[in-house]
């Protein structure tokens, strides 16, 4: 026997848009409007608007005269569909068997979850906690069939009880107008005096078929859960690419932080669901005209928590300029990797094992740029300036492993000058040398140098060389 929970979000799109606005703006009365047969009707309204007398399906004109400063926007079903998808990702963290019921509902099969949580009340409060992550208004109901749960939730008559008799009773109270009948069916039922669903349920099934046709028999069977109604269970996407509409044009990155936070929260849910971490995010800012601005955020260490994602993205974005105001934001997770349990030894409590240096590198690269943070790398090369180099941290890792443990240990200075400097050899005392260094004749610019260790008048020890052009200072030993 399956058990069903249906969650209905009557103001889904509007509530979602509110969640993206800074808190001080959410108290304003706002509505979403649809056009039906040339009439513009209120489709969704904020709590503030409802409080001031706006009702759903009310004409837009009436609503705007009732409430001063009413913000009116158009309702977009496509946008709401996207929001529902995102919502499904959130709920999927707890519920495996999840069905999207567009435009505003989620249906969950919960028989195993009820067992897991030890009863409906526990499960429901658990679900409620999860849903609270988004400030949405919703109605939740249990049912013994998908249809029964849906009807109760949509009619705002949620039942949280697994006893079929209680559900049955609640269903019986539903008015015929709230049962999802087509207008012609509704009319026929009302003509014979049916006001409540309960009256219909008392009619024997055979008579029902004779009087109202087969469609109604099927309806009753579906309501009672006698039809094994096939459900298309939700499959979470394999990659994360989330788009978000902004209500107004936003001219600067700091103002985009709030919506970005939401997107990154979803990114965390995605990564958590897949047990993955990421090393690269792509943030796209969409403009009214032209190509979107793209910002790549690379991390030196695998990241998955919203807090880290946000902090590092924020540092990256501070270095960026927005040329045009932004209408929409996309976040794409580009490089994922399975999460590896860090094998921190239990016994060693050295500083090193506490955290990895890579998190510092991520932070520095985010603020300063990837070309400012380096490793010192050693290469198998005869030319001194090729032998030791600085390399950007991420690129250096592969080289590092190979370059470790050099076979050649000769006395070399601790410092190398970026460019050899011409010197007057009379100013120096030569203490050691020469060491002859010649590169292959096959190179385009063969190098022939004699290296010396010299001391200047301040007793600083330097690495000097002489070639065809003259004497040069190349490094320091101190």
């Amino acid at each position, binding site marked *: 026997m399956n058990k069903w929970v249906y969650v209905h979000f009557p103001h889904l799109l509007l509530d979602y848009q509110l969640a993206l606005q800074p808190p001080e703006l959410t108290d304003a009365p706002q509505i979403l409007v649809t056009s039906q047969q040339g009439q513009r009707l209120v489709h969704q309204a904020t709590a503030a608007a409802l409080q001031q007398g706006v009702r759903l399906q009310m004409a837009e004109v009436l609503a705007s005269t009732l409430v001063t400063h009413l913000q009116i926007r158009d309702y977009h079903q496509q946008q709401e569909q996207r929001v529902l998808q995102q919502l499904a990702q959130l709920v999927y963290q707890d519920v495996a068997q999840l069905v999207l019921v567009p435009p505003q509902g989620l249906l969950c099969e919960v028989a195993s979850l009820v067992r897991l949580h030890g009863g409906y009340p526990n499960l429901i409060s658990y679900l409620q906690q999860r849903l609270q992550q988004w400030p949405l208004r919703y109605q939740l109901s249990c049912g013994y069939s998908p249809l029964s749960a849906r009807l109760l939730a949509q009619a705002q008559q949620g039942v949280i009880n697994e006893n079929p008799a209680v559900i049955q009773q609640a269903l019986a109270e539903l008015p015929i107008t709230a049962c999802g009948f087509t207008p012609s069916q509704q009319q026929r039922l009302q003509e014979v005096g049916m006001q409540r669903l309960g009256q219909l349920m008392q009619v024997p099934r055979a008579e029902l078929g004779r009087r109202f046709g087969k469609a109604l028999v099927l309806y009753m069977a579906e309501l009672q859960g006698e039809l094994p109604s096939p459900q298309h269970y939700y499959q979470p996407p394999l990659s994360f690419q989330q788009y978000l509409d902004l209500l107004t044009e936003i001219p600067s990155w700091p103002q985009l932080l709030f919506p970005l936070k939401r997107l990154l929260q979803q990114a965390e849910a995605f990564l958590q669901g897949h047990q993955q971490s990421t090393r690269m995010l792509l943030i796209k800012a969409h403009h009214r005209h032209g190509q979107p601005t793209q910002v790549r955020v690379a991390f030196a260490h695998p990241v998955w928590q919203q807090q880290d994602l946000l902090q590092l993205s924020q540092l990256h974005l501070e270095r960026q300029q927005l040329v045009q105001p932004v209408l929409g934001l996309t976040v794409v997770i580009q490089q994922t990797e399975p999460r590896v349990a860090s094998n921190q030894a239990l016994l060693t409590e*050295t*500083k*090193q094992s*506490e*955290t*990895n*240096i890579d*998190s*510092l590198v991520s*932070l*520095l690269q985010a*603020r*300063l740029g990837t070309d*400012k*943070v*380096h*490793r*010192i*790398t*050693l*290469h198998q090369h005869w030319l*001194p300036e090729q*032998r*030791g*180099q*600085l390399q950007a*941290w991420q690129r250096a890792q592969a080289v*590092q492993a190979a*370059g*470790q443990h*050099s076979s050649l*240990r*000769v*006395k*070399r*200075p*601790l*410092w*190398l*000058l*970026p460019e050899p400097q011409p010197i007057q*050899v009379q100013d120096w*005392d*030569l*203490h*050691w*040398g*020469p060491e002859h260094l010649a590169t292959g004749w096959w190179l385009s610019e063969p190098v022939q140098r*004699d290296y*010396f260790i010299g*001391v200047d008048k*301040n*007793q*600083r*020890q*330097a690495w000097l060389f002489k070639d065809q052009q003259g004497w040069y200072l190349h*490094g*320091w*030993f*101190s």
Partner: protein
Amino acid sequence: MATSAAVEELLRRGLLWQGQAMPEQQQQQVVASGWRELNQYLAGGWPVGSVNELQLSQRFSGELALLLPLIKQQESTTVWLNPPALPYAAGLDYQQLDLRNQLVIQEADAKLAVWALEQAIKHPAVGLVLAWCDELTAVQVRRLQAAAEAAQNLVFILTTSSTTEARSYVTRVQLHGVKVKSVAAPTHLHASNERSTSVSYVPILQFALRKRRSGWPLADLECAIPDYLPRWRQRSGRRLTA
């Protein structure tokens, strides 16, 4: 006698000391500098959780040789901020430094450099920070000092300025440079057939401690740093003709 109790407390924590006696050292955690004389002057070594200033009369006049034992003994990462030249892998490798533990930051913008410095100090995987910067304000130094103390990190600011303006550095060292002194070389048993008057030259670092935690400032100090510099063959040698 509340005051005397407060004074006692300060004495106990080593924040106040009496001129005639060195304070007890056990409460002050130190990292040995690697050099015998310097350890004596610093009452054991560099204090853990401190920002120290090395004032250089000239760059490359022995400062890295002085710090090298400290870098070598690090098990966690050493951060180099804005080094004045390329820290040369071949030379560091020759001195048996673990190159994997070295992180070099190059940031020309002074404000960002100080930010990076603070992040590095705060990070738990960092053990030692070497920063070459010339202009740090009193406020910045105080902030860095607080960060270093909280993270128990050791920080060195290397600068070419020789200001005596007060800053909250824990130690302030003025490096004058290296001089060489001749000492009679220890005669080896199997080398006894060589001239017994053989002389080797030991580099001696000349410096002044203008501020230290455990005592008065000291001027005209010397510390032998024999290990990491190439050997002097002669004191002021004839030039090799090349």
